[in-house]
């Protein structure tokens, strides 16, 4: 049986944060790594409740945590689909067919760029250079890189997601 939630976050997550903050001379430095962990553990996005809980943990105002979270493209402040697909549309990928990969991703998942698919299973989003330029084009599926794609291999990959 887990401990009661201190400050609105699950006990195991709090234990992780308690360890994380020891890496820094100032607690606040752990904020962005903490937001990553919260997003990963609490539904794939950062709800206002989660932002408030994180703010309480760091003794910050919720508006400050919101301002920080909203700066970073990896943090989702709106609900996302069960699976998040990021298709790189920057220059190296563009030169090797990124737009076709994006069109394929939208077609197979039923999601429009920046939106959740109607069945709630996918969010497809355009992303900037992910650092896979020599293996372009690529997409990120739930944080994992899939490189050297063709429209067919992208369709197969996304079609096979459960």
């Amino acid at each position: 049986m887990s401990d009661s939630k201190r400050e609105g976050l699950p006990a195991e997550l709090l234990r992780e944060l308690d360890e994380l903050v020891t890496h820094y001379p100032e607690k606040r430095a752990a904020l962005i790594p903490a937001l990553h962990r919260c997003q990963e553990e609490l539904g794939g996005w950062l709800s206002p409740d989660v932002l408030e809980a994180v703010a309480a943990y760091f003794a910050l105002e919720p508006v400050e945590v919101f301002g920080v979270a909203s700066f970073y493209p990896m943090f989702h402040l709106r609900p996302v689909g069960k699976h998040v697909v990021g298709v790189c549309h920057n220059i190296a990928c563009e030169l090797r067919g990124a737009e076709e990969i994006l069109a394929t991703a939208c077609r197979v998942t039923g999601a429009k760029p920046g939106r959740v698919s109607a069945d709630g299973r996918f969010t497809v989003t355009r992303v900037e250079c992910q650092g896979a330029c020599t293996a372009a084009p690529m997409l990120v599926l739930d944080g994992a890189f899939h490189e050297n794609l063709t429209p067919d291999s992208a369709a197969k990959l996304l079609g096979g997601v459960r």
Partner: protein
Amino acid sequence: MSAPLKREVYLLSRVGLVDSHTLPVYRANGGYQALEKVLTGGYTPAQVIQIVKDSGLRGRGGAGFSAGLKWSFMPDPAKDPRPRYLAVNADESEPGTCKDRVLMERDPHGLIEGILIACFAMRVKTAYVYVRGEYRLSHDRVRDAIAEARQAGLVGQKILGTDFCCDIWMHKGAGAYICGEETGLMESLEGKRGHPRPKPPFPAGFGLWGQPTTVNNVETLANVPFVIARGADWFKSLGTPKSPGNVLIGISGHVERPGVYELPLGISARTVLEECAGGVWKGRQLKAWIPGGSSTGLLPASKIDVALDHDSIREAGSMLGTVAMIMLDETACTVRAMQVIARFYDHESCGQCSQCREGTEWLHQIFARIERGLGRMQDIELLSALAGGMAPAKTICALADAAAIPTHAIVRHFRAELEEHVRLGRCPLGASSHAPELEEAHA
């Protein structure tokens, strides 16, 4: 014609080995011998700084500043006893660039050894590796390597039984390119929005939490154990006098074999293209190329023989940047390329400075209109005027310059393509893939 450059692979010498990321393999291949030499060979921190200075090693993160000189900016601990830090810039986000990733994924101990030597030299006890949030494997490999090293007494207290103590912590970024700028990185590491700070003050005087800090790129630090182990003279035997050593060159785009290749600085771009990357793909011709990541701007094919060292490329009217070559064949539209690049800077501007916030959006909008055939002739002059209002050195950081430089470059080298889009009211190559249904929704 100068003598051919000496070829000797060292940075990537281990990455092909099985389990190259593990401590036993690292140790079996010369690993941690440089650290041991420094810690037990009677070296003082000042001496280590001098060796790195003498080697001429220049930063590999894009700015090319002398690494040893940067280290020497850290204050004398006797005069400034405050805690001090090394921040490792593993934010690698310059479009075209994917070489630090190779080192972190496949030779993390090489980075760690470089970090430890740097910390010894600058008398730093705490280092943070700020790795871009998207680089999961890099993060995990370096994290695990630190754990291995800690177990083996190479990280933490009393390293190798000496008085030298150094902790290394991983820290994830969250997708903002501007956090690769050293002061933006520090703001982000402190748990804030990644807004770059005006300089002065400089990080060595006012860095993380206001304390002395040096920010170094991954590849720069990866060079350090080799410089120590083999000496400054050896390092200077590679590359060119003003740009010594090897560099990891990425080449991507319209080539047969895109990849990351280790070559001496000063190698010609043509050599990289033809010898390493197998030439332009599909039997096509080179039309345009970017030498050092998107900030460095398009060059015409005629410049492909330029030497890839800091000075030669500057004389050719561009910059070395991260030596991330991006190649465009004759079917590629340079205007489309600039629209994509301008869109990137629009997305990544932190928004502090008026000229950058509004200017990056404006440049993107103009390139997008021209690309779609909605441009006007005066837009071309306007691009130059706006770029001239954004840079050089008019803003807190150089992101405005990063957007302005490629803008100037396309107007200078590919003006005819811009004009043709305007005249025809469409892309002459039919390359525009503007699909409204694929535009990102901003909720």
